[in-house]
């Protein structure tokens, strides 16, 4: 295997592991919502912490899987022309797109998102309601994390695209047979 594909596979393994862990936020979210509904409706025990836990789990889930969704090529494409490109043409589009669109997007939003989380950390921000959850910076740091994961996914697919430019058949850019986590 070429070094490019090795690097790509290594990044994919990391992103997959993170996404598999983050995916458990989904059943956890179900449990929290059901518990919240039952206790509030039937035992009159409303809890701000539970309600905040709901969007915290939601945030962990979405930020944790952003990268994986890209390496598994789940994104919508307008493939009218794309479908007619040669494998090398597709690889070129992918490589240019990552260099010109994904990386700049991640650089700018990642920079500001890091500031966003750091500000929260230095202020020791907590929930605005008295009985909310502590450590608001912890959940806010999920945003930069999610953006870095997208950048990593971009790096992985950039390597794969470069490998596909050399030998389209071995790079498996369109993820045939590797579409689930």
């Amino acid at each position, binding site marked *: 295997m070429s070094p490019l594909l090795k690097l790509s596979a290594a990044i994919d393994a990391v992103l997959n592991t993170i*996404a*598999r862990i983050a*995916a*458990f936020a*989904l*059943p956890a*979210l*179900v*449990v*929290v*919502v*059901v518990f*919240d*509904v039952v206790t509030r409706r039937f035992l009159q025990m409303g809890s701000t912490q539970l*309600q905040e836990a*709901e*969007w915290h789990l*939601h*945030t962990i*889930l*979405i930020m*944790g*899987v*952003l990268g*994986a*969704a*890209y390496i*598994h090529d*789940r*994104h*919508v*494409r*307008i*493939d*009218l*022309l*794309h*479908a007619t490109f040669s494998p090398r043409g*597709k690889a070129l*589009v*992918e490589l240019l*797109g*990552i260099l*010109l*669109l*994904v990386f*700049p*997007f991640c650089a*700018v*939003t990642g920079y*500001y*998102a890091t*500031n*966003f989380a750091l500000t929260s950390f230095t202020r020791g921000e907590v929930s605005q309601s008295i009985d909310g959850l502590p450590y608001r910076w912890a959940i806010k740091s*999920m*945003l930069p994390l*999610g953006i870095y994961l*997208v950048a990593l996914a971009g790096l992985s697919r950039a390597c794969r695209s470069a490998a596909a430019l050399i030998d389209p058949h071995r790079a498996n850019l369109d993820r045939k047979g590797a579409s*689930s*986590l």
Partner: protein
Amino acid sequence: MSTFIEFLPLFMFATMAMLLFSGFPVAFVLGGVGVAFGLIGVLTGELIPIQLYSITQRMWSGAAENLTLTTVPLFVFMGVVLEKAGVAKDMLASLNRALERVPGGLALSVTLLGIILAAATGIVGASVVMLSLLAMPVMLEKRYSPALASGTIAASGTLGILIPPSIMLVIIADLLSRSVGTMFMAAFGPGLLLGVLYLVFILGVSVFAPGAAPAARSGHGSKDLGRLIVTLLVGLVPAFLLIFCVLGSILFGWATPTESAGIGAGGALLLAFVVRPVIYTALSYTRFAIEGAAANAAKGGALSRFAAENRGWWRIFLDSIRESALTTGMIFMIILAATAFALTFRLLGGEHLVTDYVVALELSPWHLLAIVLALVFVLGFFFDWIEITLIVLPVFAPIMLAQDFGEHVSPQDLPYWFAIMLAINLQTSFMTPPMGPSLFYLKAVAPPEVRLGHVYRGIIPFVVLQLIALMLVMAFPEIAMWIPHAMLD
């Protein structure tokens, strides 16, 4: 130079449109172009750097710290569980059993399943693919005309974006800052109307052109009344209860959308991993044993039968959460990127540009409505609803909602009426040859004997039904608004 800056938003839109046709993921085109024009704005002095920071803040408050959108992963999860655990397949089988004697029974079952599962998948491609994989081979085997079969499947699968709990309506409501519950109520009437139109049409075809939808073999099969009843009870009742809980709790205002989505997902897990295996195991001791793993498996005790039926439940559970996670990742990447795009567009003055232009045209509200719907219709040939709602709605909604339709629609009802027409319009666009995405999804997974020509011919009557429904809702807003009025006033 100043004209260049003034028209920066237009260049931004044009750049995005051109790059989209490269086939690079829509999400990253939106995000990349958004950020690039943000930087151009800073370089030309049009924006100050702190405004770029506000983009990140908006991404946070729009996608993460947002209880409304928590519904989205939950509804996706509910649908995926029902599908992966075989509940959807059971439902189709039981519906088909129940309607065996009715002409076109299988086609009717597919439509009913589409209506019921509309809830679940929400992504047009996913529901069309699922219905197609489940039903197309059976319909062809029963000698349905490929045209009717594909028309039914493509149309029923697309119905999901309108019928609540639809993920699209959640996102539209969020964008318009309106109540998700009311939006669902408003969608209920038109969704039902469309479902009924489909059913009547299929029934009509089956009665008057039996060649297209042959009646099931009469005589044997459903003679055993006991077995029929058991099949229905097992296959349909639990799933119906689940859907009823989700929709009912929203319609009657018992629960917030997040709560009912959580209950729906929890209920789906319960149904798939507890109720269904228990029922199957219990039935395997009676003469009503249902064909499948349990029936063929061990003759041993209760536990070993239960284990045989549920070998791999953990695998199914893992598959479900991972599949839902990837779909969620896809949706939210677009939401994050579209937020960056839409906010930059607005910061650069794009909204004013559009508003000024539209105001200068001095259109009547009805003309404007027609133009927006036509625009969305054309966009529907290329995009799924996620991109359309996230790109077009922020630009046109403020103008649209400022219109005065006089006696026809009150200002409070306008956002809901507009959203529902948008939904029906999008649905129609997805189904319209030659470019409807639903048709391509269907063709992609259908057996090779189904030609694109069949698909095109089969879908046309359904497109006509869609247009009828759209006109009706346009002419009589009460079709959408009577449930919200009845429930809320």
